[in-house]
C-alpha cells in the first residue's frame, strides 16, 4: 500500500525585503541576528533586498517592509511587494505608524520644501523638479493605509531576537507570536 501522502521535496521559501522611508535600522537588526542569519539563509532564498541588490521582486513567500510611505516611489515599491509576496509584514515603527518620518505631517509640505530648498544663500535655490525624483506625498502614511498587511513586528527597531522569533514562526508554520520580552525596551 502506498503512503497516502507521497513525500514531496521541501520547498525553499523566498524572502524579499525593502526599506521605504526609514533609516535601515530594521535591516541592521536583521543583520544583528549574526550567525543565526546564516543558519536561516540555509532554509530560505533572498529575492529583492538591499542585501542582494536585486532590483525587482519576483514571486515570494514573505515580504518584509521597513519604513513609512513618504513619496510616489515608496508607493510603487510597496505595491510591487504586495503583488508578489504571499505574506507581507510591516517591520518597525515607521512601517506600522509612520514613525519619525511622520513628524512632518502637521507641517505644510510647501512651507517645508521652501524652508529646506529655498531659504538659503544659493543662487540656484529652488524646489527640485527633476522627473527622476519621486514626488512627496502630502503626508507620510503607515503602509497598512496603502496596501493590505498580514502581520506587523513592533519596535524601533525590533530586536534581532524579535525578528528571529517572528521569522522562525513564519517559516515553520506557526502563527507568529512575540512575547512581552521581545518588545519591552526599558
Amino acid at each position, binding site marked *: 500500500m502506498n503512503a497516502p501522502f507521497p513525500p514531496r521535496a521541501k520547498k525553499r521559501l523566498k524572502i524579499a525585503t525593502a526599506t521605504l522611508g526609514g533609516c535601515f535600522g530594521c535591516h541592521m537588526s536583521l543583520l544583528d541576528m549574526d550567525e543565526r542569519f546564516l543558519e536561516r539563509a540555509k532554509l530560505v532564498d533572498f529575492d529583492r533586498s538591499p542585501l542582494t541588490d536585486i532590483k525587482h521582486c519576483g514571486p515570494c513567500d514573505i515580504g518584509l517592509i521597513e519604513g513609512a510611505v513618504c513619496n510616489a516611489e515608496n508607493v510603487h515599491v510597496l505595491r510591487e511587494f504586495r503583488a508578489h509576496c504571499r505574506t507581507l509584514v510591516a517591520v518597525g515603527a515607521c512601517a506600522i505608524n509612520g514613525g519619525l518620518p511622520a513628524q512632518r505631517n502637521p507641517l505644510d509640505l510647501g512651507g517645508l520644501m521652501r524652508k529646506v530648498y529655498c531659504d538659503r544663500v544659493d543662487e540656484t535655490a529652488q524646489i527640485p523638479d527633476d522627473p527622476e525624483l519621486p*514626488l*512627496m506625498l502630502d503626508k507620510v502614511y503607515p503602509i497598512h*493605509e496603502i496596501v493590505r498587511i498580514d502581520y506587523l513586528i513592533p519596535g524601533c527597531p525590533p530586536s534581532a531576537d524579535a525578528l528571529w522569533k517572528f521569522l522562525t514562526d513564519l517559516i515553520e508554520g506557526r502563527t507568529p507570536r512575540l512575547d512581552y520580552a521581545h518588545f519591552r525596551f526599558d
Partner: protein
Amino acid sequence: MASIDSSLEPILARYGRAPSALLQILRDAQEAFDWISPEVRSAVAHALDIPATQIDCLTQFYAHLYDEPCGRYRVLFSDNITDRMADAPALMARMLDQFGLEPGEVSSDGLLSIATTSCTGMCDQGPALLVNNRAVTRLTPERIDALCALIRARTPLDAWPSEFFEVNDNIRRADMLLGAACASGEAIRAALARGRDGMFAEMKKSNLRGRGGAGFTTAVKWEACRDAPGEARYVICNADEGEPGTFKDRVLLQSYAGRVFEGMAIAGYVTGAKKGFLYLRGEYSYLRAPLEAKLAEMRRENLLGDAICGDPGFSFDIEIHMGAGAYICGEETALIESLEGKAGKPRIRPPFPATHGYLGQPTVVNNVETLCKATEIAIQGGVFYAGQGTQQSTGTKILSVSGDCERPGLYEYPFGVSIAQVLEDCGAENAFAVQIGGAAGCCLAPHEFDRRIAFEDVPTAGAFMVFGQGRDMFETALNFANFFEHESCGFCTPCRVGTAVIARMMNKIDAGHGARYELNELNRLDVLLRTSSHCGLGQNATMALRDMMQKFAPAFERRLSLKDFEPGFDLDAALAEARALTGRDDAAAHLGADS
C-alpha cells in the same frame, strides 16, 4: 479683570472655594462668561490655589466646557441614531445654512456655534438639541426657523416660548412604580418602622438587582458599605443617564423625584450614610431647579435633614452635582472622580466604591430606578417584591422605547416580558431590528424577538431602540462607532486607540473604500477591546457592532469595494501639492490605481 472677579466671586463663594467643587465652579463660570477664557482660568486657579493645568484637565475632558469661545448661543444637536432617523441631520443642515456656518464654526460676530453632541436623552420626543445646556425637543423645520429668528434677535433663553423646552413624560405602560400613588414620606416612614436591620432584611428578601445595567444585587452593595470601616459613608444616586436611547431616569426625576430622594434616604438609613449626592447629567440641567425645590420641600417636611421623622439617630441630606457632557461618568468610579472635581476616568477596581468610594470612604452608588425600587420594598416588603418578575430578575423594569414605533415613551413591565410583547405594545409589529441596552447593548433580529428582558436572557438598563423595515443597520453601527470614539476617556490604550481605529474603518467602509479586510479587522478589534479594556466602556463598545456584522451582514457587504483592499483616500490627489510645487505633470508625477 475687575468684572471677572465680581462675577466669579459669588460662584466661588457658593462652593466654599473647594477644589473638589472645581467642575461645578467651571460649569457656573461658563454660564456667566460663555467660555473658560484664559482670564477666567487663571482667576479660578488663583482663587482655589490649584495649578491652572488642573482646569485644563477638565475643560479638555468634558464636552460641554469650552476653552475657546463658542458663541453666546451654543447649539448642540443630539446625535443619537434615533435623532438621525428623525431627520436631525437635515434640520442641522437647515440651521447651518441659515447662518452660513460649518459644524463647530463660530459665527464671525461671536453670536453662535452649531455642532453635535451625544444622545441628550430625549429620544421619545426628538429630534432634540441643547442650547446653552437647555433642551429643546420635537424639532421641526418650523421650530428651527423660529429658533434662528430668536437667536438673531439675541433673545435671552428665558424669553423663548416655553413650549420649546417642554419635556413630556410619555408614560405608556405603568406598573408597580410608575402606576402606584405614594404619599410623600410614606416610604421613609415605612423603612423607619421596619428599623435598620429590618429594612435591610427586606432588601435581601427582595433580591433587588441594580437597574443601571450591571445588575449587581443591591442589598449586597448596601451591606458591604454598611460594614466597611470608614469615617463617613455616602449614598450616590447615578443620574448620569448617558446611554444612547435611555431616558427613564429623566422621567423619574421629573415626576417621581420624591421617590428617588426617599430611596436615597433609605439607603442612608440602612448603611449609616448621612450625606447623599445626586449626580445629574448636564443635559438634564433643566431639572435642577425643580429638584432643588423638591429637596427644600422635603427638608421642610422633615424627610431630609436632622432627626428625620423625629428619629434622633437618622440624619441625611442630599446635594445635587452636575455633569458636563461625559458618557463615561455613568461608570460609577468615573462618576466619583467627577464628583470629586476631577476628570471622570474610571478607577481601578477593586477596591470597589462600597468600601473605597467618594473621598476614599464607603459609598453606595445606585441607579435612579434602583433607589425608587427601594421605596417599593420599604412599603410593600421584600417578599411581595420578589414575587414579581422572574426568579433572578425580581420586580419590574422600565424600558425607554424609541425609534420606529407608533408610541415611543416609557413602558414598565415585570421582568420576563418578551421583545415581541413590547413591540406589539409600542406599535412596531414589523420591526426590522431592536437595539437593547443602548449603544453598549445588543442588537436583536426578528428571529430573536421571543427572547425576554431579564438578567437571565437579555439584560438591559432600559434602552429599547426600534428599527423599522428599510432601515440600514450599518448607519447605526457607524453612529455607535463615532459615539464611542468620542466618549472613550483615553485612559487605557485598547479603548482609546481601538475605538478610534474602529471609527476610522467604519468611516472608510461608509466612503466605499472598505474591503473584507476591514471586516476582518473589525472582528479582531472586537475581541481586543472586549478582552483588554480597562472598564465597561471599552469592553462593551463593540457589542452592537459584533451583533450587527453578524445579523445584518449585507448592510456591511454591500458597501465593500470590489478590490481586496484599497486606500481610504485618493493617492493621486495626495501628490497634487508636490506637483504644484515642482510644476511637474509627467507620468511619474501621478499615481494610478493599483492594478
